């Protein structure tokens, strides 16, 4: 029974974790993202040639 409950917990965490992290992107609801600055990781230098 103890083993079974452990497995139950593992499955539950897996499913809830999947829903929260990959479906809901739960950090969107926890953290305010207004001030996040996005930068380009590539520098594009304007070249005439």
């Amino acid at each position, binding site marked *: 029974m103890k083993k079974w409950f452990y497995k139950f917990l593992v499955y539950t965490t897996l499913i809830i*974790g999947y829903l929260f*992290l990959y479906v809901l992107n739960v950090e969107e609801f926890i953290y305010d993202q207004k001030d996040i600055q996005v930068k380009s990781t590539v520098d594009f230098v304007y070249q005439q040639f």
Partner: protein
Amino acid sequence: MGMAIVLFHLVKRFGSQLISYRILLSIVTLVFALVYLPKPFHLIGLILYLYACLGGLRKWYEGQNIIFPMLLLALPMLFMKYFSIVSFTDDNWWKNTPGIFQITGISYMVFRAIGLYIDERSKPGKINFIDFFNFASFVPTLLIGPLDRFHRFTNDVKNGYQNMTSALTYQGWNNLLMGLLYKFILAEAIHRLVLVHLIDDGSLVYHMSYMYTYLLYLYFDFAGYSLLAIAFGNFIGIHVPINFDKPFLAVNPKEFWKKWHKSLGDWLNDYFFKPLFMHFTKKKWGTSIRRQNSALFLTFALMGFWNGFELHYIISGMLFGVYSVIHNYYFYQCKKQKRDVVFGKLNERWIRIISIVIMFHAVAFAIYIFSGKLF
């Protein structure tokens, strides 16, 4: 991965007479490398180099000294680690050389080859290329371990289809679940919900919280990946050795390395610490305790260099070395004086708890250095 597992089971069922397990494994590995790895031909080139070195060493090198074979086999890895710390700004003909050595899994392959050389050097006979290829580039463990032993691995491959039992598959399933839970749920949650949101205000609180969060993240990510590798191995009948076993309950550095990245700890012990310490002991350098400590320190310093030639890796390796030296000195004094020189007559249970707490924090600090956050 899934397709490969299904393929193995189909062949086991219908074609195990037609194609032997080891050939099938090489074909699958080769196809995987060609399709998914960024530089399959570099990888094959590296394997050929290692195999040629092994063959040459076994044929012509008769010395007992292992420094030359080790260096020879590690050469591509040393190039790779070196090139990753120097930058090439000049427009030289060799400006593209660093890229040649940036091969997926190069460090682990080199370590496997060294282990193989030492294990098999006293045994006669040729090492089969297909066996070596399977061993060196076993896909689940290619990237970050665990490090297997040639003898053990080849035995599993020899037993091949018979090893693919339902019991092992079930064991694989358990490992898979835990691996998914560790890597894709716990590590991911720690990373996305905590680690990236810590605000770097330069305060001690920030660095402390980063330290503990990073330790947990690294553990779950790494252990999860190892478990997944073990699981995929299990599904195709390979008993990949375990790599992590409740490391935060370790009471001393020695135990820690039997619980954290065990396969690397064992490798370092068997192929580096042992010969080094034996050499020291034979030469009778200094006192016994001094010999022990220098060998320990050097072993962990090597581990630091193996992670990369960047300063933070090296310092963290040396720090682990210092931990081991301190513990070894304490252990030696305890044995010599037949009493606990630090804890005295304290309750056994309490000693254990205090040791675990100290060890955990020491590890957290060393891993924090490892993370490269500080420098």
